[in-house]
C-alpha cells in the first residue's frame, strides 16, 4: 500500500515535470529583425556583431545563405530565407557599404543593383511554454542534427532504443566497480535517468536518490515514447554554468560555446558538446582544453564505431580545433526582463490555452543592439557609482521607440542575465520630481499659465484634511523668489510646483497621469505634487512616452505579431494612438524639459551628447536620496532609468548623480534623431528673460527662447524692449554662438 502510494506520487511528480516542459511544442520568441537601408545609422562592426549573433559564418565570399564576408567598410552577405508576417523573404545576396557610422550604399549581391531595403532573419531569443515563459533556445525534434543523436547514444546510452529506462547490464558493471572500490563511483545512468536527474537538479549520490530516479525513469518510459524522451533530453541536459545561469540543452550549449546555431555545427563540435555531458565543468573546453579534447576524441571514436563517421572522417575531425566563440556568447539569448514584458502582454490578451498551441512564433520589439548598449550603460554606471557611495546599488532601465511605443530594451538589474527580481516592472518607487511635468501640464491646461507665467519660489504651507500641515522644502533649502514657470520646471524647484499644483488642483494632476497611460487610480493627496506616488520604471516610460509623442497615448508594446508554426498570421498589434492632450500645451512642457537639459537639472549630461543632439528630460530624487530617477527622450527614443537599493535604504544619489549619468552613457552612444519642437498652430517663439519672464531683446540680459500661446501677452523687460524681427533673429544666432559655441 505504502509502496503503491509512493510510486503514485513519484509518477505524478515526474509526469508534471515532463509535461511542464514539453520541448516539442514551444512557441518561439524572436527579436525584431534588423532592417538595412541607405541612410540607416549602422556601422560595419554593428552589422557584423548582429550577423555573428545570428550565427552567420564568415567566409571569403558570402554566396551561401547564412554567410558573410567583411572588408573594412563593407560587408557582403546572403540572408537566410524567412517567412515574415508581411511575406516570404527568400535568401538574398547583398552588399552593404558604410561611411561614418551609416549605411551609405546597399546593393544586391550579384548585379550590384541598388536595393531599397534588406531585412535579416530575426534572432531567436527564447521560447514560450504552456504557462511559462523562458527564454531558452529550444530544438524541436526535426531540427536535431542526426549526428548529434548518434554521438549521444554511442557514448552515453548504447541500448537506449531497447531498454525500459534502466540498462541492467550497465548497472551490473557499475555495481561491480563500486563494490570493488567501496564507494559510489560509476553511475551507469541511461539517458532517461539523466533526464530525471536534470529535472530535479540534485547531485546527491545516495542509494535512496538513485532508487527514486530509477523508478521515475521506469515510469517516464511507460508513459512516453523514445522520441519524446530523447527530445526532452536534448533540450534539458546541463551543459555548463555561466555565472548565475545554467546552460541547459544543446541549442543553448551550441550558442554559448560556439556562438552558432546547433544546425551549423561540424561533427567534432557536436562531439565536444556530447563530451561535456559527463561533466560540463570538468570538461570545460576553455579551462581544461586537453581533457576536453581527449574526451571529444573518445566521442569521435564512438561515432566511428557506430558507423556514423568513416575512419578517414574521424581522423580529420580529430585534427580540428574546437572553433569556440571568442568569448562565451551569453547576451545572445538571455533577456529575462524583456521576456517578462512579453509574457505580461500575452497573458493580458490571450487565454493561456491559446498560447499552448504548437509552435507559435512570437515576433517582439526587442532590439538586441540597443539592449546590449542599455545593459552595459546601466551595469557600468552602477559599478562606478559604487566607488563613491558604497556597495549594494541596483537599477533598471527601459528604452522605447517613442512614436511606435515599442519597448526596445529592458534591463531588470545590474546583472541583466539574472532571472530574478525584474525591477523594470516590479520595483515600485516614489517618482519624486518626475511628477513635475504633469503638474505643469495640468496648470497649462487650466488656461491660467504659460511658460513665462511668474511663479513664486517661496515657502508654502498646505493644510491637510486631517488638520495637519505640510510645509515642503526645496532641495537646496533656498527661496529664489519670483521666476518664470519654465525656469521652475527646468531647475526642478519644489515650492513653485506645490503652489501651482495646489492652485490648479491635485486631481487635475492625477488626471493627466492617468490619461497619459497610468492604469491605476491615485488618491489626490497634496504630496503627489512632489512625487509621493510609487511607480515602476515601465509605468514611468508609459506616461513619459505620451510627452515624447506630443500628447498621443499609445500603450507600450513588446510584441508585434504572432504567427503559427507555418508562418500564417494569428494575431497582430497594430499601431494605434489617441491624442489625449493638446499638442501645443504638451510642446510647451517639452520645451521646459529641453530647457532642463540645457540649463537645469539635466545639464551635466548634455556636453556628452553628440554635438547638435537635443533631448528633453527630467530628474527625480526622493527623500534622503533613496531613489535616483531620470526619464528623457530624443525625437526617436525614450529611456527611463532608476537607481537605488532593493532594501529602500538611502542610496546617496540624486537623480542627476545617478540615473541621469547612466541615461547619458546610453544616449552618448545611441544614434538617435535630435528632438525638435513642433510649433504648429497656436504657438509662437518668444524671447524672455530667464530670471524675470519678461519679453526681451535676445541677448539683452539672460534671455532664452520659449514657445508661448499666440494670445500670451508679456510685458517687456525694462531696457531690453524687443526690436525689429530681422535683427532679432541675427542677434539670437550671435548670442547662441557666444554662449554655446
Amino acid at each position: 500500500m505504502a509502496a503503491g502510494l509512493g510510486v503514485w506520487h513519484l509518477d505524478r511528480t515526474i509526469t508534471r515535470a515532463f509535461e511542464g516542459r514539453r520541448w516539442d511544442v514551444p512557441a518561439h520568441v524572436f527579436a525584431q529583425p534588423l532592417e538595412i537601408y541607405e541612410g540607416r545609422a549602422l556601422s560595419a562592426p554593428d552589422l557584423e556583431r548582429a550577423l555573428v549573433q545570428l550565427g552567420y559564418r564568415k567566409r571569403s565570399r558570402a554566396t551561401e545563405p547564412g554567410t558573410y564576408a567583411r572588408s573594412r567598410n563593407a560587408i557582403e552577405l546572403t540572408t537566410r530565407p524567412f517567412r515574415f508576417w508581411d511575406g516570404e523573404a527568400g535568401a538574398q545576396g547583398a552588399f552593404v557599404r558604410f561611411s561614418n557610422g551609416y549605411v551609405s550604399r546597399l546593393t544586391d549581391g550579384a548585379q550590384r543593383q541598388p536595393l531599397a531595403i534588406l531585412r535579416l532573419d530575426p534572432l531567436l531569443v527564447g521560447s514560450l511554454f504552456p504557462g511559462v515563459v523562458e527564454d531558452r533556445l529550444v530544438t524541436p525534434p526535426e531540427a536535431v542534427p542526426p549526428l548529434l543523436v548518434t554521438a549521444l547514444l554511442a557514448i552515453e546510452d548504447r541500448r537506449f532504443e531497447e531498454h525500459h529506462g534502466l540498462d541492467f547490464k550497465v548497472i551490473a558493471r557499475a555495481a561491480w566497480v563500486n563494490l570493488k572500490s567501496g564507494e559510489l563511483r560509476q553511475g551507469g545512468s541511461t539517458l532517461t535517468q539523466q533526464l530525471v536527474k536534470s529535472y530535479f537538479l540534485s547531485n546527491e549520490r545516495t542509494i535512496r536518490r538513485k532508487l527514486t530516479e530509477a523508478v521515475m525513469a521506469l515510469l517516464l518510459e511507460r508513459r512516453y515514447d523514445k522520441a519524446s524522451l530523447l527530445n526532452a533530453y536534448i533540450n534539458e541536459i546541463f551543459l555548463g554554468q555561466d555565472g548565475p545561469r545554467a546552460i541547459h540543452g544543446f541549442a543553448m550549449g551550441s550558442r554559448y560555446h560556439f556562438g552558432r546555431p546547433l544546425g551549423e555545427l561540424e561533427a567534432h563540435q557536436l562531439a565536444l558538446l556530447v563530451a561535456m555531458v559527463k561533466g560540463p565543468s570538468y570538461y570545460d573546453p576553455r579551462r581544461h582544453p586537453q581533457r576536453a579534447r581527449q574526451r571529444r576524441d573518445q566521442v569521435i571514436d564512438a561515432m566511428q564505431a557506430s558507423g556514423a563517421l568513416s575512419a578517414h572522417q574521424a581522423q580529420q575531425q580529430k585534427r580540428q580545433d574546437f572553433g569556440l566563440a571568442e568569448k562565451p556568447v551569453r547576451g545572445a539569448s538571455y533577456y529575462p526582463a524583456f521576456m517578462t514584458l512579453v509574457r505580461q502582454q500575452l497573458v493580458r490578451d490571450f487565454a493561456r490555452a491559446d498560447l499552448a498551441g504548437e509552435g507559435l512564433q512570437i515576433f517582439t520589439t526587442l532590439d538586441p543592439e540597443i539592449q546590449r548598449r542599455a545593459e552595459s550603460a546601466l551595469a557600468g554606471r552602477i559599478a562606478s557609482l559604487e566607488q563613491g557611495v558604497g556597495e549594494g546599488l541596483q537599477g533598471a532601465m527601459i528604452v522605447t521607440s517613442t512614436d511606435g511605443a515599442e519597448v526596445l530594451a529592458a534591463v531588470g538589474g545590474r546583472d541583466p542575465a539574472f532571472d530574478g527580481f525584474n525591477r523594470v516592472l516590479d520595483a515600485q518607487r516614489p517618482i519624486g520630481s518626475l511628477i513635475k511635468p504633469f503638474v505643469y501640464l495640468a496648470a497649462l491646461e487650466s488656461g491660467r499659465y504659460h511658460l513665462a507665467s511668474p511663479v513664486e519660489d517661496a515657502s508654502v504651507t498646505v493644510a491637510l484634511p486631517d488638520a495637519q500641515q505640510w510645509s515642503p522644502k526645496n532641495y537646496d533649502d533656498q527661496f529664489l523668489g519670483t521666476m518664470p514657470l519654465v525656469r521652475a520646471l527646468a531647475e526642478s524647484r519644489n515650492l513653485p510646483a506645490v503652489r501651482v499644483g495646489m492652485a490648479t488642483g491635485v486631481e487635475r494632476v492625477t488626471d493627466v497621469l492617468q490619461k497619459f497611460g497610468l492604469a491605476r487610480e491615485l488618491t489626490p493627496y497634496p504630496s503627489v505634487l512632489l512625487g509621493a506616488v510609487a511607480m515602476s520604471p515601465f509605468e514611468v516610460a508609459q506616461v513619459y512616452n505620451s510627452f515624447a509623442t506630443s500628447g498621443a497615448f499609445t500603450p507600450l508594446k513588446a510584441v508585434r505579431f504572432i504567427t503559427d508554426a507555418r508562418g500564417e498570421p494569428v494575431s497582430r498589434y497594430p499601431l494605434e494612438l489617441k491624442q489625449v492632450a493638446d499638442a501645443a500645451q504638451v510642446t510647451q512642457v517639452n520645451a521646459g524639459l529641453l530647457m532642463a537639459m540645457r540649463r537645469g537639472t539635466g545639464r551635466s549630461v548634455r556636453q556628452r551628447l553628440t554635438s547638435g543632439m537635443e533631448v528633453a528630460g527630467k530628474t527625480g530624487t526622493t527623500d534622503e536620496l533613496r531613489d535616483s530617477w531620470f526619464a528623457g527622450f530624443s525625437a526617436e527614443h525614450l529611456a527611463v532609468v532608476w537607481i537605488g537599493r532593493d532594501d529602500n535604504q538611502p542610496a546617496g544619489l540624486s537623480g542627476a548623480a545617478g540615473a541621469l549619468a547612466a541615461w547619458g552613457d546610453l544616449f552618448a552612444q545611441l544614434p538617435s534623431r535630435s528632438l525638435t519642437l513642433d510649433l504648429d498652430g497656436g504657438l509662437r517663439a518668444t524671447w524672455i528673460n530667464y530670471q524675470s519672464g519678461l519679453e526681451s531683446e535676445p541677448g539683452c540680459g539672460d534671455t532664452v527662447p520659449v514657445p508661448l500661446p499666440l494670445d500670451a501677452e508679456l510685458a517687456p523687460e525694462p531696457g531690453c524692449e524687443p526690436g525689429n524681427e530681422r535683427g532679432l533673429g541675427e542677434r539670437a544666432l550671435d548670442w547662441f554662438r557666444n554662449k554655446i559655441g
Partner: protein
Amino acid sequence: MRFVALVGIWVFCAGLAGCSAVPIGMGEPEEASSKDQGAELGEPESPLPQSRQRQSSPAVDALLGQARALRAEGQHELAAVKLERALRIEPRGAELWLELARVRYDMGDFAAAAQFADRARRLAGNDDDLARVAEQLALAARTQGL
C-alpha cells in the same frame, strides 16, 4: 507675425509659411534637397505633390509603394504593416501617416483614421497640400464615426 529663428539647433518656425521643425543632428545624413522633384514617384493616383520637406529615402519609397499597391488590392492589413515598417524608418513621415489614415478609413476604422490624419497634418510642415488633404480626411473620418 513672421518669425523664423534658428536657435542653435533648436528650430522654431511659425507664421505664414506654415510651421515645421526641421530635424537636424544624428540620423539625418546627406539630406537630399528635393524641392522641385515633381510628383510622387510613379504613383499617378496620388493627388499629392511630393512634400518639399520629405527626404528622399529609397527604403521608405519602396515600402510606401508596396503599401499603396496592397491597398489598391484591398489588402489593408498588409498595407498597414508595410506602412508601420516605413514609419519605423521615418517616424515623422507625414505622407506615411496620411496613407495609414487612408488605409484605416478604407477599413472602416474611423477613429484611428482621424488620429493618423491629425498626426499627418501636424507633421506636414510647409506642405500645404498635404496638410489640407489630411485635414479633410480627418474631418471625413470624424463625420463617418459619428
